[in-house]
């Protein structure tokens, strides 16, 4: 009993550390990819590890009071919490204790903590940035939840672990309506990752990096960690829903194989987002809102009705 608990805690800690490392690595590789598209050399792939280490060891740290500090505390803890409630490469972690709705709402904890800190910094740019982030959230969530509901109705479960398990024989992406749904969800993923054309909340040229304008030192370092883990969380969520969490093997070494296939899949979708990012300029916020609530929502609704029709017949 106690040993089981210790093993479980060790596994969860391991995944938390791995998630952070993978996220930072992806960010570094991402910078390299973007640089190559721009025909630059770019920083080394481990640059983000150096950046975080540097920021966390700064001697000068500026705070604006205890509400400001909530940003640091809740951004890291909230995103780690979300990571552990997602099945990773077929390993369920804590995902049996919650479901997709829980993950949707858990994702709000770090953002809300971050938003509180940004608000308490007293800089108007931060307020505007958070406003943009929240409007983006409202925008991409509508098509995203519609596709999510399509999946839930088809597999008759709301738990992500359940959805992943139901896809053991066939990934959702190979069922026609979900091909459409996954295209919609991938665009929502673009918004979630805040890559162009949807990097409106952090637009550096307009509102001076928005919410994080007042953050420096350990605060900025922790936000970088938050960003790194959120890349892993968001892509994993997507892969869990449409690619069965990357599960391809069920044999002896299935654990390692599935882990690698999950890693490859989330890397593919992160890279895809980056390539779209390099090719597009930034939307204005109302354009992004219209894009998601008009075209994306129509496509998502078609897939939902299609699935509903498949289920009831």
């Amino acid at each position: 009993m106690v040993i089981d608990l210790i093993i479980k805690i060790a596994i969860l800690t391991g995944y938390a550390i791995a998630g952070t490392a993978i996220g930072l690595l992806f960010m570094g590789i991402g910078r390299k990819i973007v640089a190559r598209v721009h025909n630059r050399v770019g920083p080394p792939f481990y640059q983000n590890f150096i950046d975080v280490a540097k920021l966390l060891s700064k001697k000068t740290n500026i705070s604006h009071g205890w509400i400001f500090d909530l940003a640091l505390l809740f951004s890291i803890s909230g995103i780690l919490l979300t990571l552990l409630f997602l099945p990773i490469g077929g390993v369920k972690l804590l995902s049996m204790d919650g479901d997709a709705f829980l993950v949707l709402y858990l994702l709000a904890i770090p953002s809300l903590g971050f938003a509180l800190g940004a608000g308490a910094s007293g800089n108007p740019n931060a307020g505007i940035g958070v406003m943009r982030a929240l409007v983006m959230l409202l925008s991409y969530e509508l098509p995203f939840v519609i596709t999510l509901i399509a999946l839930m109705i088809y597999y008759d479960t709301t738990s992500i672990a359940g959805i992943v398990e139901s896809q053991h024989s066939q990934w959702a992406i190979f069922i026609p309506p979900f091909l459409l749904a996954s295209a919609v969800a991938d665009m929502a993923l673009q918004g979630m990752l805040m890559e162009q054309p949807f990097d409106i909340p952090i637009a550096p040229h307009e509102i001076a990096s928005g919410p994080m304008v007042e953050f420096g030192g350990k605060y900025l370092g922790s936000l970088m960690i938050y960003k790194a883990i959120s890349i892993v969380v968001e892509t994993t969520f997507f892969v869990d829903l449409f690619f069965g969490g990357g599960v391809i093997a069920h044999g002896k070494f299935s654990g390692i194989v599935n882990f690698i296939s999950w890693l490859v899949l989330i890397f593919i979708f992160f890279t895809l987002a980056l390539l779209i990012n390099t090719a597009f300029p930034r939307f204005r916020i109302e354009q992004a809102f219209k894009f998601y609530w008009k075209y994306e929502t129509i496509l998502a609704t078609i897939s939902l009705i299609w699935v509903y029709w498949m289920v009831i017949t």
Partner: protein
Amino acid sequence: MLDIIIAELLLAILITFFVGKKLAAIIAFFISLLPLVALLDWASMYGFKFISFGIEKSMNIAISGITLHLAITPLSWFFGIMIFSLFPAIMLFSYSFYDKNDGFYPFMLLALFSSFGILLARDMLTLFLFWEMMSWSSFILIYRNKDKEATIIYLVFSTLSAFLIIFGILLLYSQNNSLLFSEINLTPNLETVVAIISMISGFAVKAALMPLHVWAPVVYSKSDEPFVAFLAGGLSKLGYYGMFLFMFSLPGAKIMEEYFSHISPNYILAVIGALSAFIATIIAFMQDDIRKLLAYSSIGQLGYIAVGLGIGSQLAITGALFQAFNHAFFKAVLFLAAGAVAYRTGKWKISELGGVAYKMPITFTIALLSIFTLAAIPITSGFAAKWLLYEAAIKAKYIFVAPIMLIAGVGAFLYSFRILYGVFLGGNNHPDIKEAPKSMLAAMFVLVLPMIIFVIFPGYALDMMSRALSDAGIASIPHTVFTIKTSLASYNAIAVLITLIAALIPAFLIYKSKPHRIVDFKDNYLAGEIPSKYENISMHAAHNFYKPVEDVMKPYFEPGTIEYYKGIYKGLAILSNTLRKVYTGFTQDYAIYVAIFLLTVMGWLIWL
């Protein structure tokens, strides 16, 4: 003993008319504990044993040939516990909120007394009597502020509600020849269905369900905060109590489903509830007046309860009751917090507020907790309620209701942040204010307690609800103290909480690793770059906060619902004006009318 409680309540209403404001508040506080004591005594039917005075569970009062039947049921107990635990806290709040006694306390006590009556009523006449008494006392409380619009709109909608309810009661009476709930047998025929729909619409007025909500934003923004907290938190639940009574305790929902084979009014109620949640949420974040924002948020959150009642499955109803329970507390706290902020700053406009949290940290923390519950963040009990409703919608495969409800949940983040940033954070606009008075803080703290308890133990809340539901023949959903299980998934509250605490450790280590220095608000990114003549400029970007969405969405919300009511009013006015012309004032015309009437009657007789 019950008669003594009722007599004491009535006596207190009289006394509070004549005493000073401090004494009135104290009397009102202690008297309002009486219904709560009665409920705790009756908790024995729930299996708890707190106190036992042996207060009788039922009583009949005979007044000049009419008998009022009063009795407690598990369902009224559940609704009672949320309404009556709000009241003493609100009295505590008013203790420092008012500086004179001008009729607030007696009418608040009357509202309390009538809601006690509504919950205990076991026949339709008693229910209606107390319902009218409640509407009337709240009307006086709104009238105190001398706002013409709010007074008239509340009067009109209360009358509408009363008409719809009495119409339903009469129809049911003509069917069953009895007013007692226990003697009503519903049969699926047209009269019964019309009666049930009429009753539900009547109760929906008080529950501020769209499109019958138009009175709520006006009344909530034009009345005193302590009363609004009770109106939004407590009295609005009575509307849902009424709906629940006629839909599930008397199986009206089943009858409607039997009568309508395809789309039943239950489904329409769920759709209206979801649309209400969605539209009110969108309108809420466009508001600049914090009371209006909270009013629309209230309409939205109450919409979820309607969705639960409309879906009508065991999961959905449990979720609806849970949502009602949460809403009673968090909305009361938010209105009180808004009242406390206004008490110190004298401002209601979000764009003029800002920076209140730095000077009122306790108010802020309490408001933050209730906002978390409102936004259904998983570390609060708000999540369990919404989660049950989402599960129910997915299980019933309501593909229209589910996404709308979910996106309304996301929209709640937007207006939550509008309150947090606009009122409490941002630029430091109020460097000279003080923390709210102690009695206000105590009131808000008491109300925030249930939210803290039920986040860790959602099972206890479900225990309470399942006993209320078993009365209506609805089984409870499988749960333990910490976890809720449905056929689709399960939710473990304690796992979320423990993991969050564990995940706070690395965050805390990073936080403690290096020291930090706390600086002033002027010491920011713009450091030294503010030209001296702009030095006192407000650094608070809360004006027109959600302008981009507003620009896109506003055309779809024009004209508002109230314009349609005004259209109906204009149509009626034109119609009446035309009809009025019949009365010309000339005797010849009237003679012609008589002649035409007689000819018609003769023609009819000949035709027969």
